[in-house]
C-alpha cells in the first residue's frame, strides 16, 4: 500500500512508512519475547526444588571404612570415611595410571573424608562401593571402575566422580551444596 501525500512526496512517505514498520515490528518482537519467557522459565526448577538443593550430614556415626550414601538434589552422594590404607592408596597412585589425572589432595578437604557424587560419569548409573580392583567403586552397568579417591581407573567412564561443593560446619558435620 503506497500513499502519496500532497506535501511530502512518495519517497519521503516511503521511508517514514519503512521506519514505522521496523519500529512497530521490533517493539512487537520484544513484547512477544517478554511474554514467552514465563512459559519457558516455568519448566526450570521451582522454588521448592531449589530449597532442597543443600543437604546437611552428621559424620559422627560413620566409622572408618564405611561408605554412606546421602541424597543431594535427588542424586546419591557417597561419603567415604577412608581408612589409612585407602588414603595411602589414593595419595600414592601414579598420575600416569590415571585416565583423568587429578591429585587426591585436590579432591578432599580432610584426607579421611571423601565426598563424591555417586553417579557414574559414563551414563548415569550408581556404582557399587568397595568393589572392583581398586578398592573403590565398580559400576554394574558397563564395568567402569573407580579408586578410593573416586577417580576413574577403567573405562568406559571418561571422568572422575565429581566432588560436589561442600563445607565442614563443625568437625563432624558437613553441608553439601
Amino acid at each position: 500500500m503506497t500513499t502519496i501525500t500532497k506535501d511530502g512526496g512518495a519517497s519521503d512517505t516511503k521511508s517514514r512508512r519503512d521506519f514505522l514498520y521496523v519500529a512497530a515490528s521490533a517493539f512487537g518482537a520484544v513484547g512477544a519475547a517478554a511474554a514467552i519467557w514465563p512459559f519457558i522459565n516455568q519448566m526450570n526448577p521451582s522454588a521448592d526444588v531449589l530449597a532442597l538443593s543443600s543437604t546437611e550430614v552428621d559424620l559422627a556415626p560413620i566409622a572408618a571404612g564405611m561408605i554412606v550414601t546421602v541424597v543431594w538434589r535427588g542424586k546419591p552422594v557417597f561419603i567415604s570415611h577412608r581408612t589409612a590404607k585407602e588414603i595411602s592408596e589414593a595419595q600414592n597412585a601414579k598420575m600416569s595410571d590415571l585416565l583423568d589425572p587429578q591429585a587426591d589432595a585436590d579432591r578432599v578437604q580432610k584426607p579421611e573424608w571423601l565426598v563424591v557424587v555417586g553417579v557414574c560419569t559414563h551414563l548415569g548409573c550408581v556404582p557399587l562401593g568397595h568393589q572392583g580392583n581398586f578398592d573403590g567403586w565398580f559400576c554394574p552397568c558397563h564395568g567402569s571402575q573407580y579408586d578410593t579417591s573416586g577417580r576413574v581407573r577403567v573405562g568406559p567412564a571418561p571422568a572422575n566422580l565429581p566432588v560436589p561443593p561442600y563445607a565442614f560446619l563443625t568437625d563432624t558435620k558437613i553441608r553439601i551444596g
Partner: protein
Amino acid sequence: MAFQTNSKLVKWIDYRLPIFTMAQHSLIEYPTPKNLSYLWNFGSLAGIVLVIQIVTGIVLAMHYTPHIDFAFASVEHIMRDVNYGWLLRYMHANGASAFFFVVYIHIFRGFYYGSYKSPREVLWFLGILILLVMMATAFMGYVLPWGQMSYWGATVITNLFSAIPVVGEHIVTWLWGGYSIGNPTLNRFFSLHYLLPFVLVGLVMLHLMALHQHGSNNPLGIDRKGPQDSIPFHPYYTVKDLFGLMVFLVVFSILMFYFPNALGEPDNYIPANPLVTPAHIVPEWYLLPFYAILRSVPDKLGGVLLMFSSIFILFLLPWLDTSPVRSGRFRPLFKQFFLIFIIDCCVLLVVGANPPEGMFKIVGRIATAYYFIHFLIILPLVGWFERPRPLPQSISEPVLGAGAAPSPAPAREKA
C-alpha cells in the same frame, strides 16, 4: 487472484500441500464487507483468547496434581514455587472470564445485527455448541483447585442431573464415579477439562468454514452486491483486529495484574470440605444469569429444564425472529426491545449473584419470564408488525452518498 511467489521452495511445498494458497485465500485476499465496525473484532479476539487458555492450561497441567489430597496444595505450589506460576494461573483464571466476556459481546452483536438469519443458521448453531462446550469446560476447570467453591459448585451442578425422572440418581452416580464427589470425579474432570478445549478448536474450525461460505454479516445487514462492497481481509482487517487485540490486552493486563481475584470467590481459597457447605454458593459471573433462571422455578425438574431451555432456545432463533431485515439498525421497534433484553440479562446476572430471598426472588422470576417472552412472543410479533426503515441499496451507498448508486430513498443516519 491465485497465490504468487518467486520462492522455488514455497512453490514446491505449495504444489504438494497448498497451505500457502489456503492462507492467501482465507486470510489475505478473503473478501470482507468494507463496513465492519469494531463489534466485528470479537470473533477473532475469542479465537486468540482460546489459544491463550490452551497454552496457559497446558503449562499449568505440568505442575498440577489431579488428586483430592494434593490438588489444592499443588495449586498453591503453582502460586508460590513455580517460576511465574502466579502469572500463568492468573492468566488462565482471568482468561476464562475474558473468554466469556468477549464471546458474550460476540453473541449480542449477532443478536442485534441478525447474524443468525439465512444463510448463516448453521454458523449460529455451531456458535451455540461452542458456548455450551465452553461452559462445560469452564465448570470443570473451576473444580480443579479443589477449594470449597470447587467442591460445592461441582456438587450442585452435577446434582442438576438428579432431576431427571427415574434414571437421574444413576446418572449422577455415574458422573461422580462414587456416591459423592470424590477422587474419581476430580480425575475425570481433569481429563475432560484437558480434552474439551481441543473439541472447541474443532468446532471453531467448522464455525470458520461456515463463516467463509457466505462471509461476514455487516452492520447494515444487507448482502454485498459486488466487489465494490468488499475489501481484502489483509491488511484492512488484520490491522483492525490487531489494534483491537492490543486494546484487549491492555484491559486484560490491568485485570490480571491489579485485580487478579476481583472476579473470584474468596471461599475457593479454603480447601474442599465435604462436611460443610459455604453459606452462600455462587457460580462464576458468566454463569450467573443461568443460575438465576434455575433458582427462579420452585420445582426441581422445572428449574433444570428452564435453565437448559434458556440456551437451547437460541437454536430456534432463526425462525423465532420473523423479520426479513437482518440489522437492528433499520428496525425501530426491535431496537428498543433489544435494549430491554440486554437490561433483562443484566438483571438476571445481579439476581444470580444474590441469595434467593425477598425482592431478588420476585425480580428473578419476572426477569426469567421476560427472557423467554422476548424470544417466544416479542421477536415473532415484532417481526410481524414492525415497519422497517428503508434499507440502503448497497454497502457503498451510505459511505459514498446517493450519487454513487442512484437510489430513490437513501437511509437517514439518525432515527
